[in-house]
Structure formats: C-alpha cells, structure tokens
C-alpha cells in the first residue's frame, strides 16, 4: 500500500499555523509508540544522514524532552520542549523550541485517527508566534500574496 505520497503540508493564509497530515500502515497504538518510545523515536525523526541523540525524554503530562541532530557537515542543532496532557492513542500536545532561535516557542498538536484496516491518519498542527515567522518557515507552502506584504514576499523568494 502506497503511503509516501499522502503527505500534505499547508500554511493557511493569515493564520499562524502549519497543518500537516500523513497516512500510515500502522495502528494508533503504533503511532503513539513511535512518538513516545525514545528508542523508536530516535530511529525515524530527522532527515536522512543526520545523527540523532536524545538527551531527555519523559513521555507524560509535564514531561520534558530534548534531542539533537548532527548533520553530515558536523553541525549540531538542538531542540526541546514539554508534553502537555497525557499522551494517548488519540494524540498528544507539546511545546517545541529550536535552540538556534531560543524563545521562539511553537505549540504543537498531534492527532491519531483510525482509518480502519490497521491504518492511521496522523494530523499535526504547529502554531507559531506570528504570521511572519510562520511564513518564513513555510516559505514554499505559503499560498498567495498578502496585500501590503510585497516586500516580505521578495525576502521569502530570495531565501
């Protein structure tokens, strides 16, 4: 069953959100384990060729997580956050911070939806602190030109 082209990422105009969805040949229990078991988490999160190190992982309400990626050039990027609410097969919530831009904290919500036949739809929403920062992150996904932001558009095209 082909799931690789079910990835959808959108950045709805005028909102601070990045919306993502992806189908998996896995149960909701497996999706939860993939996100909450640090041994499994380390095996898939991050781009190809990046080394992943988890320095903290407390999969519970109020628990903290922290991990680092090292790219093939040897550069490190660190991330951390906190889980809010008890993670379940319905999904979970967390804050997320990239330590290269500290203080810019995202609020992220993840939903696991049963599609039947042992398949699950993962939906995720990242809420960023401003439309401008969301637009800069999602530069290839922002649809349309927001009136009065022509110069911002030039910036996005030049990045």
């Amino acid at each position, binding site marked *: 069953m082909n*799931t*690789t082209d079910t*990835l959808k*990422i959108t950045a709805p105009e005028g909102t601070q959100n*990045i919306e*993502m969805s*992806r189908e*998996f*040949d*896995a149960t909701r229990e*497996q999706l939860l384990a*993939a996100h909450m078991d640090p041994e*499994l988490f380390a*095996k*898939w*999160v*991050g*781009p*190809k060729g990046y080394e992943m190190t988890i320095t903290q992982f407390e999969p519970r309400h109020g628990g903290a997580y922290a991990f680092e990626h090292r790219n093939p050039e040897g*550069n490190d*990027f660190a991330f951390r956050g906190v889980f809010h609410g008890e993670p379940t097969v319905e999904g979970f919530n967390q804050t997320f911070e*990239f330590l*290269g*831009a*500290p*203080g*810019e904290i995202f609020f992220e919500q993840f939903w696991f939806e049963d599609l039947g036949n042992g398949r699950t739809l993962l939906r995720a929403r990242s809420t960023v*602190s*401003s439309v*401008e*920062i969301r637009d*800069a*992150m*999602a*530069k*290839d*996904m922002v649809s349309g030109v927001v009136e*009065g*932001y*022509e*110069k*911002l558009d*030039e*910036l996005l095209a*030049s*990045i």
Partner: protein
Amino acid sequence: MNDDQLDLVFGALADRTRRGILARLAETDANVGDLTALFTMSQPAISKHLKVLEQAGLISRNRQGTMRLSHLQAEPLKHATGWLVDYRTYWSESYDRLDELFASLNNTNKEQ
C-alpha cells in the same frame, strides 16, 4: 558562512524585537524614528538592536540626506535557514523512515 558568523546571525535572531525589526524592514527601509514609533521603545534601545543586526550582516545602513535608513540584507538569513533543511524535506524524510520502521516492526510480528 563560518561558525562565528552563524553565531552572530542566530544571536541577532534570538530576540523578538530584532525579529520584528527584520519583518518591518522586509516591507520597506526604515529609519530609527519609524522603528521607535513601531516598537514604543526608546531611541537608544532601538539603536542598540540595529547595531546587533548590522554586525550580523542582516541589515545595512545608509545615509539619505539627514536620515539614516536601515535596509534588510537577506543573504545571511538564507545561509542561516539553509543550514536546516526545509520543513517539508525534514518531515517527508522522517515519515518515510517511519514507514520503514513500521514495516520492519510488522514483519517481525508476522514472523513470531
């Protein structure tokens, strides 16, 4: 871009007023007076922020008559954000690897 320069860029970005200044300059050049009004901050405070941005190479400043205009320089931002793969690539590759992980887990279960 070397590590020292990247440190300056990320350090400059790690302040919400400075990020706000960059967003404003993305629309059009501005002088200190424009920025002071926008952020309801003192002139010396804004000038301090502009100095940090200029040192990081994120803005350039030019005299136009009696005013000093700040101008956004996008190149360093390009290097800083290019350092991280883009959002879609990050998740597309991660989810592909998750597919492989599920496939191997489910195959292991079948064998048992």
